[in-house]
């Protein structure tokens, strides 16, 4: 089936800052189908969060320039009217943020905040209906004693419980797409496991698509079907999760996979690292922005520092890579990374 729920094409986002123009996202295109979980991995400044907030048109209106399109169920979220975007925010596409404490309004009870999200898209709902829906959601996301906790304030909940409430707000209108921006990064590992479980079970119930933004390859490996690897505002690799971990096709992905510590004792020893630091988005290097850190750029030649590599299909696993190396080279090195 070719019809996708979300189709992002040639997304470019830049921010005017006193230091210069920040090219946060460059030429990003991808699709998400109903029920799919797409992971977006990358380090800070890779453009993953800006990509996500562009879909909801959350970027600041004063200094951001966004071009391209992000068609969600037939509507281009980047060009439609403010009213149309508003009608879709929270109802068709919802968002979960990294830090659940700062994402909740400290001045209102959690019940009111969940109810408000429902009411705005169901203006005719009676007070009792809203309340019922709120209690439903609290139960669904696993808040114990919902009838008692509904009237409490965010600060009275633990970190994990707060993230459950943020999820309840996001899912109260049964959206088709959930964008989760580092939803478990601020949480402890045992709580992280609970929240991921919760998100997956609610996804199964609603056939909802999820875009999961994270820096944690472990989280991606466990919950995503497809992955985008972003670097310097661009997608450098697009692959199914199995293909990414079996035979990654981009030098940056090789470095990332090598840099992850393992719990397996046989795999201790020196971590593979990516030398250097991520590029400044104000003065992006010409050509491939990963070239200055890439250990293969020398052998490939000057093309790496002059021409931006386009995503192309590599191998038979359906992976796409933005690298100037030959297919054979990529396949050969990629197959050894995880061996």
């Amino acid at each position, binding site marked *: 089936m070719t019809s996708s729920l979300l189709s992002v094409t040639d997304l470019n986002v830049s921010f005017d800052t006193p230091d210069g123009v920040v090219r946060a996202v460059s030429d990003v295109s991808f699709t998400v189908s109903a029920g799919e979980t797409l992971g977006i991995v990358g380090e800070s400044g890779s453009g993953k969060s800006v990509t996500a907030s562009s879909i909801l048109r959350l970027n600041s209106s004063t200094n951001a320039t966004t071009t391209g399109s992000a068609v969600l169920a037939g509507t281009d979220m980047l060009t439609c009217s403010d009213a149309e975007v508003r009608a879709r925010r929270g109802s068709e596409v919802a968002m979960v943020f990294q830090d659940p404490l700062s994402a909740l309004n400290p001045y209102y009870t959690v019940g009111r905040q969940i109810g408000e999200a429902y009411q705005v898209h169901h203006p005719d709902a009676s007070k009792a209906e809203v309340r019922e829906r709120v209690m439903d959601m609290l139960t669904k996301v696993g808040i114990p004693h919902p009838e008692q906790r509904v009237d409490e304030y965010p600060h009275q909940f633990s970190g994990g419980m707060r993230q459950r409430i943020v999820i309840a707000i996001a899912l109260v209108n049964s959206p088709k797409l959930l964008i989760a921006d580092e939803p478990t990064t601020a949480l402890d590992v045992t709580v992280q496991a609970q929240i991921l479980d919760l998100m997956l079970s609610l996804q199964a119930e609603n056939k909802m698509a999820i875009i999961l933004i994270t820096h944690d390859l472990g989280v991606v490996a466990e919950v995503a079907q497809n992955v985008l690897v972003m670097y310097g505002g661009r997608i450098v690799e697009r692959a199914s999760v199995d293909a990414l971990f079996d035979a990654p096709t981009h030098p940056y992905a090789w470095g990332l996979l090598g840099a992850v510590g393992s719990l397996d004792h046989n795999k*201790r020893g020196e971590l593979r690292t990516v030398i250097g630091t991520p590029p400044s988005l104000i003065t992006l290097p010409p050509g491939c922005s990963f070239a200055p850190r890439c250990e293969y750029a020398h052998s490939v030649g000057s093309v790496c520092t002059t021409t931006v590599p386009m995503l192309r299909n590599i191998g038979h696993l359906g992976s796409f890579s933005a690298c100037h190396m030959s297919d054979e080279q990529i396949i050969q090195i990629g197959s050894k990374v995880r061996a």
Partner: protein
Amino acid sequence: MISDFALEGIDLVKYFPTGRSGILGRARENVRAVDGVSLSLRRGTTLGIVGESGCGKSTLARVVTRLIEPTHGQILLDGEDITHASGKELRRMRTKIQMVFQDPYSSLNPRHSVGQIISAPLQVQKMKPVQGERQRVHEMMELVGLNPEHYNRYPHEFSGGQRQRIGIARSLILNPSIIVADEPVSALDVSIQAQILNLMAKLQETLGLSYVFIAHDLSVVHHIADEVAVMYLGKIVEMGPSNVVYSSPSHPYTKALLSAVPVADPKRHHRQDRIRLTGDVPSPVNPPSGCRFRTRCWLATEKCANEEPSLNPGGNGRLVACHYPLETPVSIGS
């Protein structure tokens, strides 16, 4: 005879008074951040301390480096009691034990140049290196992989990873034998984390350092630690050689913690047979009676509520505080 251990903590306790209640507002309760912890760091090795937020690992770090004084217990540095060291004694002890902090952004004074930051401990200790202060700082910068030409630059001109290198250089300039690192890589991106971990491993080898390495990230600790202590609500629940604890956890909490870590390998994940802990960590103000983990433990019985388990030998050189330690070691991910 000089002690085998670079650093020892014996029955360390640290309480923080909290909450005011009553008309006169007298403090009544204590946060029992560290509640009876004993540990020892063998010379030239790394002791990892893991646990979730609120388990007391950062307080423990500040106690053993004497940034704060313990409520109770004893700290031995090279066999010498520094529990209540003060003034000159405390300053002398700081040449032997140094700390690396989590946040490379807030732990460096933004108004001081890198050279000033790295050399500051020399001035505090009124030490004059034979090769000259500037030369010494240059050496340190090279050692941690910074360009000595950047001597006069300011912290904001560096990336997070480089700032952490500055912090490490500062901690090494007095030639200490022990480094206590509190979440040194958790604020950094994955690829940068690996750089710092490799650097720390290299420095340990060349300088013969002993590390206390505190982190919430189990795979990071696994990578660097020879021994590991798992903390829960102010107590150590399991401690032993890192390979033993990681490959066959004996305390239910250790097992749950390990099994919760997402595995970066889609073929291996068993989300179904993972141990799921329910609920959150209880408050350290009113910890559960008996075993503190019992409220979330799937093996808990009445005994666990009544009797506090003590740390006992649990095979393969480990200590475990559990009434029902896991008998058949289950290897993770095998």
